[in-house]
């Protein structure tokens, strides 16, 4: 943890100042471009995320929003541009990538819990093997976060025995056990039955209240309205519009954004 704090300093000096919050930015994305073969998925994305900021990314499917946040912890490699996370620039160096992944938690659409391990073991794995936390301490942290997502009683079950909503809450706890500085959510409620969405959103709202830096790809506009500091609308691999949720929902500037909002808010 100390290493990353020291890592912040040189970067903040070196980067050109373009936004007010540049020196506070925990994630800096400059001119990010990515191709899948010949297909240009991400086109010159720029984004600065302040520490503690909560950003919701929305847009039609195929707009590149998932690919975008997956670039931030290098699950997808980008071909042009710069991503700097917590003072460390992402490149092909495995050490760098792993250092960033330690500080960035991720929650997936399909939970991706490890089915051969119990819920608690899922939470212990990374702290013990990556952070080298002593097992007892890791258990304590693990139970703490399982309590925060309100399923300490399921700790010794296997993921296959839990409901979708419970599994996703375990996935959130698993990511939090690494005590990350940033949390990425990739459509965390899209694979859930309607009655389970709320229990997951409740946990996420609570997490937002605790000051965690969050980037969340979601179609839950209610969640965006209540917790987001900024809403980003993506289409065709570009950031079309960025605004505070108040402005975004009541007064969208771009016709494409209006069209999208009409589509999803109609019913």
């Amino acid at each position, binding site marked *: 943890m100390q290493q990353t704090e020291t890592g912040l300093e040189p970067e903040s000096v070196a980067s050109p100042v373009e936004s007010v919050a540049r020196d506070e930015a925990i994630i800096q994305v400059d001119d990010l471009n990515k191709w899948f073969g010949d297909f240009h998925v991400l086109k010159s994305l720029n984004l600065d995320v302040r520490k503690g900021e909560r950003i919701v990314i929305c847009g039609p499917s195929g707009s590149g929003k998932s690919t975008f946040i997956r670039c931030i*912890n290098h*699950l997808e490699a980008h071909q042009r541009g710069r991503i700097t996370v917590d003072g460390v620039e992402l490149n092909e160096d*495995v050490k760098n990538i*792993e*250092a960033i*992944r*330690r500080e*960035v*938690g*991720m929650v*997936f659409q*399909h939970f*991706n*819990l*490890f*089915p*051969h391990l119990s819920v608690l073991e899922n939470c212990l*794995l*990374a702290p013990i*093997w*990556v952070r080298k936390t002593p097992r007892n301490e890791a258990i304590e942290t693990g139970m703490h976060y399982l309590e925060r997502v309100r399923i300490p009683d399921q700790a010794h079950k*296997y*993921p*296959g*025995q839990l409901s979708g909503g419970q599994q996703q809450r375990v996935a959130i706890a*698993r*990511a939090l056990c*690494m005590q990350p500085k940033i949390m990425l959510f990739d459509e965390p409620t899209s694979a859930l039955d309607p009655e389970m969405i709320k229990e997951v959103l409740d946990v996420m709202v609570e997490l937002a209240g605790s000051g965690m830096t969050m980037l969340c790809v979601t179609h839950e506009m209610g969640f965006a309205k209540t917790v987001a500091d900024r809403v980003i609308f993506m289409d065709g691999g570009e950031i079309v519009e960025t605004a505070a949720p108040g402005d975004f929902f009541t007064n969208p500037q771009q016709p494409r954004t209006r069209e999208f909002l009409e589509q999803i808010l109609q019913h």
Partner: protein
Amino acid sequence: MATHQPLPDQPPPISQRGWLRWLREHLFSTWYNSVLTVVIGYWLISTFVPLINWAFIQAVFTGDGADACNPDGACWVFVEQRLGFFIYGFYPAEFRWRPNLVFALFALSVVPQFLPLPTTIRKWLAIFGITGLPLAAYFLIAGGHFGLESVPTSRWGGLMLTLILAYVGILAALPIGILLALGRRSEMPVIRGICVVFIEFWRAVPLITILFMASVMLPLFLPDGVTFDKLLRALVGITLFQSAYMAEVVRGGLQAIPRGQYEAAEALGLGYWRRMQLIILPQALKIVIPGIANTVISLFKDTTLVLIIGLFDLLGAVKSTLSDPAWSNVMAEGYLFVAFCFWVFCFGMSRYSHRLEKQLETGHRN
């Protein structure tokens, strides 16, 4: 007014219960099933009654020699008299306590795996089985250390040799196979290329050819004075051959693991080897337990091919005694004995793999 009295339960009619019902449902449900039942029943009786009569009722189990045998029954005296040779080959009789001790240690590590013992005990015995046991077996059987007289491998034989070949082969082929499977899915072209070539080469050559090459050709290429033990050469050949098969079995498992598992492990910051060790392999190997058991069982039986390079494994030992003029007409007994021994071990492995599968079930479908 009479109040309602519940009727007592009555047994179903005779045709609907017990073995009669079972017979009707399973054997005589239609006219053609009835015909099949009768035909197969006749065949079973006409085959197995004489067989049991020959193998047990008329058979002679103990005696001094071929004269003790009954011409109408099996002559198990042959197996009894030559058992020492079948188990140890030419291993000196005065040192047979050494392989016996190894057998005991082997039983100590294997038998508890089938008993309802605590997992930790079984785990430690299994770990002993794959680490301490081979070492102990080497020092005890080969000798030459700790004041034990050395016994050259040319005198090893019988069931002991079969078990050594199979055990070492399995123990070495599984890890090599796993590494090859991982290598074949590597993103590094050189490593992937090497693994593909290795697997495709060893898989495409018959084991018999490999054993011939190892025993006849290899010494021709080695400089003068450099010799490898024949048994060691056979072991290396078997191991490389089986590891290629094992690699493809394991690769099947690796491919069955959803991408999300890899991604979740990566996102937590786990390095490549940790991801494989903690997340991917435990799941992949569990999926391919039936395939691994299959390969292991076929490896066990393939060890009999060492016969052609002059090693006397169980089959070789039995076969060589069949030409003994003191015993005539004991071919069936000899081969049945070999078949029985192989069946016991292979069936044991099969049961163990079933047990493992059940034990590792966590109720998750990917």
